[in-house]
């Protein structure tokens, strides 16, 4: 029953190190938020490219989405940690010691998640019944009028819960910034407190990390469900 004593140690460890944990949580939130916003924006652009009649845009979007969906997020992060900072520093003429990790992480997540968002958005648009296009055209609407007056509002309703769920997955995935040696919620609890203080503290803190993520994600997914029921009504 060592586990119980490790759990019992959690409250005092958290109280003594709350500033570290909060700054970790802040980084997690920042990355999640920027990735969701830019990911949805770029994802929408990609989805519209895929649905457009322009062959070049179509193929570009298809390749982009397939590329990012076939490789691990972790690998994308390594690209942005190990290879691209040199390029970024070179392009923007930054000094070699400049720390671009946080920005790199945000860009990496946004570019990666956009591929997933674009598929959700595309599926949402495709799910609107064909008859709706016909009805819109029959009323004399142009293609773009039909899209933004009739199709997108309907697609959006069915998409929102999926976009939010993807946001929760993204929140969990941000823990992978560990491989960029960034101190997010996971890094703060497990490496900064757990491993640094040593002994059984690392056990307590990994359990703490698991519980924290669980509470946040479970609550969020409950809210999404609640919201989904509201929409369907």
């Amino acid at each position, binding site marked *: 029953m060592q586990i119980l004593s490790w759990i019992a140690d959690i409250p005092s460890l958290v109280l003594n190190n709350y500033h570290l944990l909060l700054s970790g949580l802040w980084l997690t939130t920042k990355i999640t938020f920027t990735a969701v916003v830019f990911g949805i924006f770029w994802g929408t652009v990609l989805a519209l490219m895929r649905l457009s009649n322009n062959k070049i845009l179509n193929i570009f979007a298809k390749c982009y989405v397939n590329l990012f969906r076939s490789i691990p997020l972790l690998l994308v992060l390594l690209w942005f940690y190990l290879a691209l900072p040199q390029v970024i520093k070179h392009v923007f003429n930054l000094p070699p010691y400049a720390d671009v990790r946080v920005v790199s992480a945000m860009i990496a997540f946004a570019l990666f998640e956009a591929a997933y968002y674009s598929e959700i958005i595309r599926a949402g648009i495709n799910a609107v019944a064909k008859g709706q296009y016909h009805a819109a055209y029959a009323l004399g609407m142009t293609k773009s009028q039909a899209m933004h007056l009739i199709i997108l509002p309907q697609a959006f309703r069915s998409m929102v819960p999926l976009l939010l769920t993807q946001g929760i997955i993204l929140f969990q995935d941000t823990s992978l910034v*560990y491989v960029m040696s960034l101190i997010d919620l996971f890094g703060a609890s497990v490496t900064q407190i757990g491993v640094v203080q040593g002994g059984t503290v690392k056990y307590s803190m990994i359990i703490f990390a698991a519980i924290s993520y*669980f509470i946040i994600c479970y609550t969020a997914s409950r809210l999404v469900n609640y919201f989904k029921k509201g929409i369907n009504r």
Partner: protein
Amino acid sequence: MSFNWTLFFESTPYGDEIYLNWLFDGIIITVSLAVTAWIIAFLLGSIVGICRTLENKFLNGFAAGYIQLFRNIPLLVQMFLWYMLFPEILSGSLKIWFISGISPNVSAFITAAIALGLFTSARIAEQVRTGIQTLPIGQRYAAIALGLTNRQAYMYVLLPNAYRRIIPPLTSEMTNIIKNSSVASTIGLIDLIGQIDRINDATNSIVEILCGVTIAFMLINYAVLTIMRFVEKQTRLPNMNHGG
């Protein structure tokens, strides 16, 4: 910047191998981990998913809790949880064997397979549940009206249909498990990702190595999709092209 694109065909500092062999070593570990974890995930996920559709309140509640637990904790955290706590759970000679009797790469493999398998099982359980619940209710009625017991109805009617329906989402879970297996590198497994550091230490050519690993992942992904397309074709019923 200059690149050395023939890097993978140069020989390693240890002699008779070329770096491509190291890349292949990584591919083998990544694929074996994914396959092992998939077997765990598929078995557990099926059981939990079936429990989720039963009327038994206890089993249903247990399954619901299981799914929530493993879905709402990041894989990285689960990986570290097992990495740190698994040796502590073991006792006696098993613990000694796990800590010092096997090579670190093997113990990391076992830990990662458990973590990845359980993580994925919750997602498979959700698919299995959806597959069963979206079957027309009449199928269950028809099976039961013929006198089949609940267990027989699942075995002969509901599951064969449900699994056929969920081949597409299971395929995407398979590609996910390949991608997710990369997280095992954080607990020291020398998989495809683990080889990045190893080759980079010897050659210092990160861009070329990342390109190689990226291509390797794309090929594995493509192989999974091809195999599953074949499976889907084999299991498809005549005249049932639309989801049935």
